[in-house]
């Protein structure tokens, strides 16, 4: 059963990291804000979660605290962009820099171990190994159900009149302004939500890995971009409404990417080469997209 092991790891990581991808795709595609903050809000979420757990907070409280920290960072990015008229990318980079120091201050160390601490995966541990011995069925079921419920709630939220206004603010700020929609307010709230999701998933990641590290967020951006691109390539765009397409593509992309990476590492790819391979892979997918000329979606947004 050795071939199952990469699938197992890939699925778990894919289900956890689907949230950052979802957040990135949501902010990029629906809010029109390529949000780099997730590289900072991921470790911050993990740090806040770890410290909260060390201080014997309950699990839900710790996760919510992490999400609030992420929301603050997202809102900060939006405020920096709006208040100081800083470029969107630059605003994200500034907040990532802020968050690095913040993480070290919060954790008072570069990493915190969480082994022997309570985790939500303890509750589903009996299900693990039910099918095959290394296969963590319980963990996967739990993460999948969280993701499905969360994505459903998200899709419902962006189809309410509030969500429609949020998307108008992202899709065409001029039009939104003409309709009396306060674009800054919606941007701040939108980025707060996406970064809260990132920080929430960081809590799960810290829980699963058993530690929180200040360098956790490194490479999450290229991962999110790669996953989003793959997902948008695989999911049929014409059949789905755009918001649902973005959400589904992010989840599918994240799963496919993580499983591919897990198998690639299994087949002997050095972990050090992973980022280079990822970058080439993203470029290849984008090149494929350009050659086929069937995608108006990117053209519209680019």
């Amino acid at each position, binding site marked *: 059963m050795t071939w199952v092991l990469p699938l197992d790891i890939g699925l778990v990581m894919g289900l956890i990291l689907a949230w950052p991808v979802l957040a990135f795709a949501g902010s990029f595609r629906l809010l029109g804000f390529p949000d780099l903050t997730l590289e900072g809000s991921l470790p911050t979420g993990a740090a806040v979660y770890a410290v909260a757990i060390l201080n014997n907070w309950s699990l839900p409280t710790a996760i919510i605290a992490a999400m609030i920290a992420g929301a603050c960072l997202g809102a900060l990015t939006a405020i920096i962009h709006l208040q100081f008229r800083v470029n969107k990318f630059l605003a994200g980079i500034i907040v990532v820099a802020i968050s690095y120091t913040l993480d070290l201050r919060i954790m008072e160390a570069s990493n915190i171990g969480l082994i022997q601490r309570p985790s939500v995966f303890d509750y589903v541990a009996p299900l693990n190994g039910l099918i095959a011995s290394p296969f963590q069925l319980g963990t996967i079921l739990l993460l999948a159900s969280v993701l499905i419920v969360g994505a459903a709630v998200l899709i419902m939220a962006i189809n309410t009149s509030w969500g429609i206004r949020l998307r108008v603010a992202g*899709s065409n700020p001029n*039009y939104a302004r003409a309709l009396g929609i306060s674009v800054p307010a919606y941007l701040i709230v939108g980025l707060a939500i996406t970064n809260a999701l990132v920080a929430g998933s960081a809590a799960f990641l810290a829980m699963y890995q058993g530690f929180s590290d200040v360098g956790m967020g490194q490479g999450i951006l290229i991962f999110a971009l790669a996953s989003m691109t793959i997902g948008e390539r695989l999911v049929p765009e014409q059949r789905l409404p755009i918001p649902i397409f973005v959400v589904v593509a992010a989840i599918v992309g994240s799963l496919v990417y993580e499983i591919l990476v897990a198998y690639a590492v299994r087949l002997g790819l050095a972990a050090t080469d992973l980022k280079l391979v990822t970058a080439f892979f993203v470029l290849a997918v984008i090149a494929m997209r350009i050659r086929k000329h069937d995608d108006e979606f990117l053209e519209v947004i680019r």
Partner: protein
Amino acid sequence: MMTIAPRVIVSVRDLVVSFSRWGQRVTAVDNVSFDVSSGEWLLLVGHNGAGKSTLLKAIGGQLQPDAGEVLIGGRHVRALKPRHLATTVFTIHQDPLLGTAPLLTVFENLFVADPKARRSQNSKPALMGRYASLLEPIGLADRMKQPVKVLSGGERQLLALVIARLRETPVILLDEPLAALDPSKTEVCIEEIAAMHRESKTVIQVAHDIRALQARADRILALRQGRILAHADVAPKNSIRPDSRSEAESAHHCIRWSLACLLAAFIANLFKSRRRLEAEILFLRHQLNIALRRRPARLRLRGSDRALLVWMTRLWPSLLGMARVIEPATILRWHRAGFRSYWRWKSRKRAGRPRIDRDLCGNSDPAGFAR
């Protein structure tokens, strides 16, 4: 929303807007004042850079004027809160991509713009039915679930106009909405604007090509280098016109109208007394002097000249009556030509005789053709 609809809805007072462009101060709108009545359809015309779009932006509250003020419904437009402003003025831009949210469906675009959508307990099917009736004339009724990005530019512009109708704002500002459209779409577009006009909305429209519009609009305001060049009230002409009319029909109508004007003026002049006509000659000559930038001088005429001028005068007002269809510059050219031929005729007739009158205007070169 305005509680009482005043007669004058948009009032522009001594408006000055200037920009700093590459270190140079450019005055885009220079001391402009005018009023727009409620329910009026005003066209703003002028060359590129005449300040039309800037004026429109200032009316829409998107620009801070350097001096002067814009009042909408008696309130300063810059003092209105964004939400309040959005229920007062709605702007459609030249670029169809600016007027709609491309990633949302047609339905969502209409839903978000519809002030009534959330207020009452409207079900989605009821809203869809309502929007379908609005989209029917522009042929988008069956594409409500498609994202706006798949529509063509013209379709998007038409959708923007439907949204403007839906907004229920008393004032609609249109910044060359027809610029990106083909002729067939232009016609549908004008129909949509006319529908808004019928719903007694105030329409202020920047237009380059006014051929199709001047038959419909109430008033034309010409701008040049940020100043008002001319006001043309086309309302009386339009009041006798039926509502829908093709361009060819309106051209015919225009010619018929001007011929009728000509005839009416000629007949009216026939019955005027000689004394009255001489007064008119004086007035015309004065105007002509101003037009030719000459010093007004006393009219010195003798019997036969005077009789000729009386007859000529019987034609001049007719020419002036055509001012609606013919450019003022052309009329001025005709006047000059008329004087020139008259002067030549007179000098031929009186050749060899001592000249009593230097010329009609008391100048040696009335038309300025010797310059």
